């Protein structure tokens, strides 16, 4: 089963390496990891530069107990400030993908139409290619990517999942 962990970490050099290294040396499987500078009103941070937020998707490989270990081991890192498992909480989960596909001029209209169904947008049109940007849940992203496959995907870039908790609840 896949678990989604959100971690508030100090925004300082080396933190990503510490987190990623912990996963590899303890044999935990990272599905995706997204990180960026953040703002969190629960923490005192006047400059807005103090923290980063990570969303980590982990596969427990059928051993749900491993999640306890992962959380405890992560919290032991001095730079991890807060941590929560959002697998069962009410969250807004999103992924973004950029898909560069083969697109001859005559194919453009149907690709644009397809994108519209997914509320995706076309970010670039080249002589023989288009770049489609899709945002949404993993299923939605997978859905569009699969529909774009027949055109020939030249390149694909996905962000991995990012999440925020809904309402007043902290992520």
């Amino acid at each position, binding site marked *: 089963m896949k678990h989604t962990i959100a971690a508030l970490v100090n925004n300082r050099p*080396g933190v990503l390496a510490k987190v990623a*290294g912990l996963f590899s040396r303890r044999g935990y499987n990272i599905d995706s990891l997204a990180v960026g500078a953040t703002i969190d009103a629960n923490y005192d941070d006047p400059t807005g530069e103090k923290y980063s937020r990570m969303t980590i998707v982990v596969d427990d490989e059928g051993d749900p*107990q491993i999640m306890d270990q992962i959380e*405890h*081991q992560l919290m*032991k*890192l*001095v*730079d*991890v400030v807060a941590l929560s498992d959002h697998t069962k909480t009410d969250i807004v989960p999103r992924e973004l993908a950029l898909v560069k596909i083969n697109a001859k001029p005559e194919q453009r209209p149907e690709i644009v139409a397809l994108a519209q169904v997914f509320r995706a947008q076309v970010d670039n049109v080249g002589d023989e290619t288009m770049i489609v940007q899709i945002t949404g849940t993993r299923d939605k992203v997978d859905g569009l990517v699969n529909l774009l496959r027949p055109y020939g995907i030249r390149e694909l870039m996905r962000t991995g999942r990012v999440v925020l908790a809904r309402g007043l609840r902290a992520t």
Partner: protein
Amino acid sequence: MPKLSGSQALLKVLTEHGVEVIFGIPGGALIPVYDALYDEPDLRHILMRHEQAAAIAAEGYARRSGKVGVCFATSGPGATNLVTGLADAMMDSIPIVAITGQVKTLAIGRDAFQEADVTGITNPITKNNRLIKRPEDLLATVREAFYVASTGRPGPCLVDLPMDISLAEVEWNDAPTNGVFDLEGYNPPREGDPQAIEAAAKLIAESAKPLLYVGGGVVSADARDEIRELARKTNVYVVNTLLGKGAYPETDNQSLGMPGMHGTAYASYAINHCDLIIAVGARFDDRVTGDLNTFAPGAKVIHIDVDPAEIGKNRDADVGILGDAKLVLPALAEAVDERKRGAWEDHLDEFRSEHQLFIPEGEGVYPQYVLNEIFNATNGEAIVATEVGQHQMWAAQFYRCAEPRQFLSSGGLGAMGFGFPAAIGAQVASPDMPVFNIAGDGSIQMNIQELATCIHEKLPIKVAILNNSCLGMVRQWQQLLFDRRYSGVDLAGNPPFADICNAYGGAGRTITKREEVRDAIEWSLGINDRPVFMDFRIEPEECVFPMIPAGKSFRDLWENLDDATGGGEK
């Protein structure tokens, strides 16, 4: 605010933390720091002969004194040589702070001379590490290292100090006086949850066959008195891990010593037949448990630990108590009812009397006999460091410790070469105590260069080399488990160790007969100004028993060679 150089500021923070001694070796990137050290006569610097020994000596100092040990190494190879000591401190939860020189900030990443990515290399083997990139971060970074190293579950911290930072101007400010570092996300637990403590007390009251399982965490927590009080009030028998030696006196009748792969048969028996394990600062290491699926099958578990990741990691806990043993143990002792010893304890006494460790008779020099004589000659009061191998296990079995911080051994990492530098650190921490290093002929050669440090510093460390001309523990496994296919274990080419020590200016003696053993030990105890090598030419075929082969369980315990070769079933 006074201005200092980065190097001066670093040393001032060390002084602020009560550091009295530094184990280190200088090098290009650290010359500014050593230049500042020239003006600090109160900071004793011990020049080691290898950085690995510097890290381990800092550990030995910390293990013995309970204070944070400090080591210095220069950039590149100096820092990479620290790795084994850092990994060892990480595995055994020993508080040390390593300061490494680094190339100038502008040169970082350019493969400069003596550059290595030290924070990258040491990420998995430090509790925390930092590369200082700005002079204004220096004070907080070094203070944080001391705070993190010494609080919660202790461990090694490393500060990587580029040469230009050590030369830059730093504005001094005094540390916050309350001693508490404001570090979000780092909150070492203290008091245990009262409900969990009540639940634990209830389990103890319901148990017919309880057992205390005491680990290095009790030593780290300085909970010597607290564990003794709990044991006294409940009359529960005690087993201890290698790192827990002396937390509860092994010389006491209530102690069964060490369980596990080479523990006493009665300690292993007790832990596998009890109905309640009260684990305190111990982590159910595989050398204790063997096969986890068959380990202590009938036991419930109370697990007291300061590290939440340890509770339930290897063995599920019926009651987990997260907290500092120093605070949890008195609360538990308060909550628990007085308990009288009963049939279980009588049964353990009987089992113990039938399964004693034995010392072989005979003309030759038997390692068990040597350890027992060292124990007798020192009234069991010496500080004993060990290397790693057969001699380490014989030392653990026969040098029963009455006090914590008396027995220094590389438990988790199992690093050969540990004992000699650890003994140096311990001797520096306790200059008036006799310090032994129990070594093998393989291990001693992994840091034998530290003889020079002992001569230089007049450290009278007594090294007992149990010399069987081979890598004995590996040979034992090959003998018992790999059809006597002895591969890569013959140490032909060993030097006469007594001569080596003499050549450095120490004192050496070779012992080949049983009747020479005690005399040599007494002789070593009379030497107070230089290191001693006693080269005990032991019976080369001796194996360490009892033995539970790796991954097996108590049922597979071999008490002697007949069991091992006949496949005795228990």
